[in-house]
């Protein structure tokens, strides 16, 4: 019963979503909105499951002085700092307004930390590109050449080097061709495969053939 009910609900919601795509008439058009609202409500309530789980595990670690417990202490302090600042010292519903303590914490702590993580990407791109672009095989050499021309064609010096060539045959044009023809073709092939894969997986889940998600075999 514990597995059948979720499977039944999945099947009903799945079929209703498919039907409403083709039938705009009432009541099918209302179901989509209704189910989406239900999902949002459940997801909003479920956030507490996550928060309580995080607090429980972190508190246990701090209490038992487990491995790397100071990190857990930082998590707990961070959670209470922003929650208390937002709930009690930021003017109720206007907690997101500029100048509130919540906004101060958000702008001066959270945003720089997020930006720092994002900025790491630049260094990781460099190290990953170095590995990917090593010409160890025919395919890797092709990738190296394509990457080289695309990068060079995206900056003014690319056109400057090839300025002696007629208009339309310069590096920026080659870059555009690489991006618009082979790159787009490859990406579309992947997208077609993805669409078919989504359809197949959806059918398996809706028809109850794929039961792993509900804890089945």
């Amino acid at each position, binding site marked *: 019963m514990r597995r059948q009910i979720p499977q039944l609900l999945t099947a009903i919601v799945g079929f209703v979503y498919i039907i409403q795509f083709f039938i*705009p008439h009432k009541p099918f058009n209302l179901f989509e909105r209704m189910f989406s609202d239900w999902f949002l409500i459940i997801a909003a309530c479920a956030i507490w499951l*996550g*928060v309580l789980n995080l607090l429980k595990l972190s508190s246990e670690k701090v209490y038992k002085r487990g491995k790397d417990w100071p990190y857990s202490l930082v998590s707990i302090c961070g959670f209470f700092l922003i929650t208390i600042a937002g709930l009690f010292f930021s003017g109720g519903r206007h907690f997101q307004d500029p100048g509130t303590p919540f906004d101060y914490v958000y702008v001066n702590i959270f945003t720089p930390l997020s930006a720092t993580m994002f900025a790491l990407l630049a260094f*990781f791109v460099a190290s*990953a590109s170095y590995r990917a672009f090593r010409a160890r095989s025919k395919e890797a050499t092709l990738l190296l050449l394509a990457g080289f021309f695309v990068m060079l064609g995206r900056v003014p010096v690319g056109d400057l080097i090839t300025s002696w060539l007629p208009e339309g045959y310069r590096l920026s044009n080659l870059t555009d061709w690489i991006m618009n023809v082979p790159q787009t073709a490859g990406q579309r092939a992947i997208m077609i495969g993805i669409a078919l*894969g989504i359809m197949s997986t959806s*059918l398996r889940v809706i028809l109850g*053939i794929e039961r792993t*998600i509900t804890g*089945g075999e």
Partner: protein
Amino acid sequence: MATGKLRNQKIYFTLICLLLFSPTLIAQQTESADITATPPAPVTEVVAFDTPNDAGSSITICWKKSSDDRPDDRLFAGYKILRAVYPRGEFQQTADAPAGAEETFDNEAKDGVEYTYRIRAVRGDLYSDSDASPPAQSKQQWFHTGRVNALIGCLIIGLAIIFFINRAKSGKELYIRKIAGLEAVDEAVGRATEMGRKIFFIPGINDVDNMQTIAGITILGRVAKRVAEYDAKLEVPVCRSLVMVACRETVKGAYLNAGRPDAYDEDAIHYLTDEQFGYAAGVDGLIVREKPATIFYQGAFFAESLILAETGNYIGAIQIAGTAMPAQLPFFVAACDYTLIGEELFAASAYLSKEPKLLGSLKGQDVGKVVILLAILIGIVIHTLGLFNFAQIFTVR
């Protein structure tokens, strides 16, 4: 003396300027006054009809724009849509349309009530009304005619999938090509067991309403079963509460199916944060501190993909990634040992289970690919010969 001379020079200069430019100024003022004084030419050919393929309450209104509706006429303000119940209702404004528009929608119509419309062209304070349109009424449609092609496509592929599932059930052997990334799952789990280190599974950063997350969780179920059989340790840090619940249920089921319910640890599947880079920082920290032997990235990933995969690469873990985000695939290919590209992510669960019913669905998918390939070839021929717009057949509205 000198100051007086300079003043006189200034006066003369001003007078000359006024004499030179006065005809132009006068002409401009007259023209401007003329434009302001004239009402705009009225809109013509106003038609109204029920908006097709909708759930009712909407009427489409089309017209031929005023001949004064030109980009250079700065006074032309746009159009007001006036609506009246047919035949004797009073016209009232129901919507606005900007200059240049020739179509708008009345989304506040009552189904079954006949309405007639006038379009008011407005220029400055003046306006002119069009003739009233023939009456129209809105109604709901039972079928979206712009999606017939999608329905046919879904039926062909859906029936093919069901056909091959049934065929597989009857015991027919199906050939499925080898997927290197999935063949390596056993090796990756075995390596972690031998090293006595953890296996990390990252199910992406989207919620359970995303099909990639669902596919990721189904793969988690298969991986968790192997982990339970090998008696290895699994950790699943997640980004969404609902994903955490779904993952727990899946892993619990997998341990139960493997005959090791005692080995299941609920706390191994834990929530970190909903924030993208907060999650990336949390997982990176875990990777660096715990040094897992194997890391799976299966689901929807965005900018954090390379941050996670490079950190995993740095600690020397075997990494198997899978996503249907085309923009993130190159990053995973560069940083991971194996990458499931697009459709392979959705095929992984069936592939790992080796269950005929699930493998049958993969064959049905292949039929879809054959149909699309044929359509592409036919399209190339038709477009090359310039017969008709073949691509239009595949446009879904």
